[in-house]
């Protein structure tokens, strides 16, 4: 193959180029030609195609995501907003926290272990890039039916991959989700969240500023990993009829990343970089064009200097390679020797590959010829933007009219008892220890709460006890029924989970997993979800600090349930005051906060009966805010013994989970229709445990926040007793709850 240079592009201007194979449309290709005033070289074509892919350019989602900025509430907490690698919020005492979720869905379907592992690796580098020490991870996961044979392939591999990478990095896993639904067969969702902490003055940005400063590539050598992976993997759905499209898989090296983290943190501590960017999707194409675009504007790179693992790589491939565990830094010449010294200390390969200039062009040379000469903004920040058509799906009204009333409801005490056992053992509600026991939650010694608590809490300052709490949530079935309301409910739940543990919600991240944006029905779901989240964040006063969009999660014409995973970050001034979920002493009082209505549309009960239809409940955000304030105040003044959010499965499941944690039972009395009281999924409810001494103080506090309380009963005994209905020994509940995952997945690898 002869080298395609800028010179040759000027000479044979009409050469046919495979832009369609690279995923570019005719009009996009025409635009590239008009930007350059000539045809692109093959390297330029590679760069534009990958940077203008859905995954990198957000071309279908951009017009909607703007709402997060436009509707952003007034807040002093936001230090860095959307647009950087991850948003940064002020958590007090001079500390800043950065957090973000990303998806690695398609790669994890192809190769579960490596796909999930490199997903963790990628999000951790995003957090590191902000100048932060990564301190915890979470993994919201969605799979096809639990008993499907492909789930037995995908889930164990994904879990082992997340554990294999995260454990080796020394990052505690503090929470996540495991949810099964038919629509995720062939489209599992592997989302990963990372949170990091730094001092305010240590925040780093992805900017190549300062003429004469050096561009340094450091970390792993570049190989042929995932070439074109971004455009092929993230932007096209899988079609089982065409296995030939299987891309080459990226393999992660967590040890290399661990060393890279420690090396970067030492480099940051000595203030040796002007700007820094991780290499993720689109590799060097992305890092160089984004750094240049956000900085002084010009950069020259000598591509021959890139250290290669595979010496046969062509320049186009080097630019596209998604080899993991690499970073790109901008370093002043007088600091380069110290920078390289630290890299040597950690045995990290580092190479100066270029220089910042004021040419307003990104130029790349290979074998002394210029192969790329582009305005970097046009690659990185001024990609195409689509106003995709969207329309409510034809069947939406019919779906909403199909209420779950046809399912026979349990009536007798025995039927109610069986319903509880059925729910607590169903895969979506069963104990997830088989998964979470594969994750290190202790490492770093700061984990105060982790799974199965309502939110994960990590301490960030040992002296003061300052900490952060995070929860991720969404009931995607609700989002299918009403994507606007469903997404608001997702935010409400994550917000409530954070407050339940005593932390004050501060900021939001999200990972929007949807089907094909080319389907107007999917685009409608997407638009509704984004609008719902932006509106709800404004109402609750929470800024969205970043997130991720994953489209094309569909098999044939069938899209996944719209799955906007919402993550809420909260701050707690003293982690010693957090509220945990376990009932731990006998003779305490149990209260239910919030009102119960009949809400079975999209519920887990309907799901196990194969029903999905009706209207989800409405999110009452004013109520959620008062409830949160009550829970936070009660935690600060230490008057709660425990608290647990009600979600899937309703009250019965929540109390059972609280009892199972430390094996202390409860006796509760319910009003009205027992089925509704026990299993309805009305949002905005929390069960709290209060000792007799604090009871009056608590009731007064609840009244002052205008939160309705119902006295449920008392703690104690070795059974869950529902007065006048039934009782179940905790041992029987535990067997039902804990047996499911081992039965489904033991012996799989």
């Amino acid at each position: 193959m002869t080298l395609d240079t800028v010179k040759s592009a000027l000479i044979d201007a009409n050469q046919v180029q495979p832009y369609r194979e690279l995923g570019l449309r005719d009009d996009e290709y025409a635009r590239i030609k008009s930007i350059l005033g000539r045809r692109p070289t093959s390297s330029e074509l590679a760069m534009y195609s990958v940077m203008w892919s859905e995954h990198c350019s957000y071309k279908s989602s951009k017009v909607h995501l703007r709402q997060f900025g436009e509707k952003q509430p007034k807040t002093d907490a936001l230090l860095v907003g959307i647009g950087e690698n991850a948003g940064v919020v002020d958590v007090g005492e001079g500390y800043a926290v950065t957090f973000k979720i990303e998806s690695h869905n398609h790669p994890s379907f192809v190769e579960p272990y490596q796909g999930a592992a490199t997903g963790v690796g990628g999000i951790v580098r995003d957090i590191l890039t902000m100048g932060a020490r990564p301190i915890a991870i979470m993994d919201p996961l969605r799979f096809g039916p639990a008993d499907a044979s492909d789930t037995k392939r995908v889930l164990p591999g994904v879990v082992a991959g997340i554990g294999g990478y995260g454990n080796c990095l020394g990052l505690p896993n503090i929470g996540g989700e495991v949810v099964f639904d038919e629509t995720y067969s062939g489209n599992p969702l592997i989302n990963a969240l990372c949170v990091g902490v730094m001092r305010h003055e240590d925040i780093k940005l992805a900017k190549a500023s300062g003429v004469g400063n050096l561009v340094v590539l450091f970390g792993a050598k570049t190989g042929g990993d995932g070439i074109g992976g971004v455009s092929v993997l993230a932007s096209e759905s899988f079609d089982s009829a065409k296995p030939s499209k299987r891309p080459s898989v990226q393999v992660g090296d967590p040890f290399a990343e661990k060393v890279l983290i420690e090396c970067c943190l030492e480099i940051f501590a000595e203030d040796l970089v002007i700007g820094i960017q991780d290499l993720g999707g689109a590799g060097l194409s992305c890092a160089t064009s984004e750094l240049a675009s956000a900085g002084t504007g010009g950069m020259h790179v000598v591509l021959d200097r890139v250290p290669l693992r595979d010496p046969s790589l062509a320049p186009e491939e080097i630019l596209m390679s998604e080899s993991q565990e690499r970073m790109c830094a901008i370093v002043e010449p007088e600091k380069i020797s110290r920078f390289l010294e630290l890299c040597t200390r950690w045995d990290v390969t580092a190479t100066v590959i270029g220089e910042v200039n004021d040419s307003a062009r990104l130029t790349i040379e290979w074998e002394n010829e210029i192969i790329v000469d582009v305005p970097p903004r046009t690659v990185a920040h001024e990609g195409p933007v689509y106003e995709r058509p969207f329309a409510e799906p034809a069947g939406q009204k019919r779906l909403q009219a199909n209420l779950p009333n046809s399912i026979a409801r349990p009536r007798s005490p025995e039927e109610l008892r069986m319903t509880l056992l059925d729910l607590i053992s169903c895969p979506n509600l069963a104990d997830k220890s088989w998964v979470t026991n594969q994750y290190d939650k202790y490492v770093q010694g700061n984990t105060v709460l982790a799974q199965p608590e309502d939110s994960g809490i990590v301490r960030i300052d040992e002296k003061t006890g300052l900490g952060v709490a995070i929860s991720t949530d969404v009931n995607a079935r609700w989002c299918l029924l009403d994507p606007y309301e469903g997404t608001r409910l997702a935010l409400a739940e994550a917000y409530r989970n954070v407050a339940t543990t005593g932390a004050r919600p501060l900021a939001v991240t999200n990972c929007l997993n949807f089907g094909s944006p080319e389907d107007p029905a999917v685009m409608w779901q997407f638009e509704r979800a984004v609008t719902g989240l932006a509106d709800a964040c404004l109402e609750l006063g929470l800024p969205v600090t970043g997130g991720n969009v994953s489209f094309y999660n569909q098999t044939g014409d069938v899209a996944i349930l719209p799955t906007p995973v919402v993550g809420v970050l909260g701050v707690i001034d003293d982690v010693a005051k957090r509220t945990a979920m376990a009932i731990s002493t006998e003779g305490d009082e149990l209260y239910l906060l919030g009102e119960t209505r009949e809400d079975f549309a999209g519920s887990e009960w309907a799901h196990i009966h194969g029903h999905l239809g009706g209207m989800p409940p409405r999110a009452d955000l004013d109520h959620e805010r008062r409830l949160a304030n009550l829970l936070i105040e009660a935690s600060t003044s230490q008057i709660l013994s425990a608290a647990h959010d009600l979600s899937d499965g309703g009250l019965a499941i929540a109390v059972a989970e609280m009892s199972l944690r430390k094996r202390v039972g409860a006796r509760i009395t319910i009003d009205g229709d027992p089925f509704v009281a026990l299993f309805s999924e009305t949002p905005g409810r929390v069960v709290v445990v209060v000792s007799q001494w604090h009871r009056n103080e608590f009731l007064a506090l609840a009244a002052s926040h205008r939160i309705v309380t119902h006295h449920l009963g008392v703690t104690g005994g070795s059974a869950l007793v529902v007065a006048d209905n039934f009782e179940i020994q905790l041992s029987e509940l535990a067997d039902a709850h804990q047996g499911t995952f081992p039965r489904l997945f033991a012996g799989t690898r």
Partner: protein
Amino acid sequence: MIIGVVTFPGSLDDRDAARAVRMAGGEAVLLWHNDHSLKNIDAVVLPGGFSYGDYLRCGAIARFAPIMQEVAARAQGGMPLLGICNGFQVLCESHLLPGVLTRNSDLHFLCRDQELIIENNSTQWTSEYSIGQHITLPLKNGEGSYQCDDETLRLLESEGRILARYVGENPNGSRNSIAGITNERGNIVGLMPHPEHAIEELTGPTTDGLGFFTSVLKSLIAL
């Protein structure tokens, strides 16, 4: 008393071990794998983690780190040396302790709170416990199954060199449910569960792990 904690590339629980030393009242110093000298260190902890990625076999590469020569020499001369998890693996690979740690019997990484019974309190790291005492520590590893030949096992058993055993169901297939062992002299100890993660109610299941660190500090003062 100064206790050194070695940081290999890939070590994870080094800062936690240092914190445990300080909580127990000692002074902790982080030692770098590439250094050659231990200076004025009184005892050493090899921490948990994935040294050199734990590729090949856990601890196999760390064994050759420059600092390990001095650590091994001093330990053979009687300096207290504790290997926790990956540190235990390094001790076995270095032949400072017999046997080897292999893949958990169910092949999964396992993180859980594990009950143990202390069976030897005459080592420098366990004197603060009583024989037969039950303690709970986090166990977290993928290769924690202790294996050795029959002869070694017989020796360990007959000489009382099994420091602690798992209580209840064997979590990883370790022979005779071994969780930790000591050398004959009682100064070199390897332990699979993590005492350094059981030093504060807030962040660990118990505070049962502190005893390992108070034990060694006491024994050093007594010398």
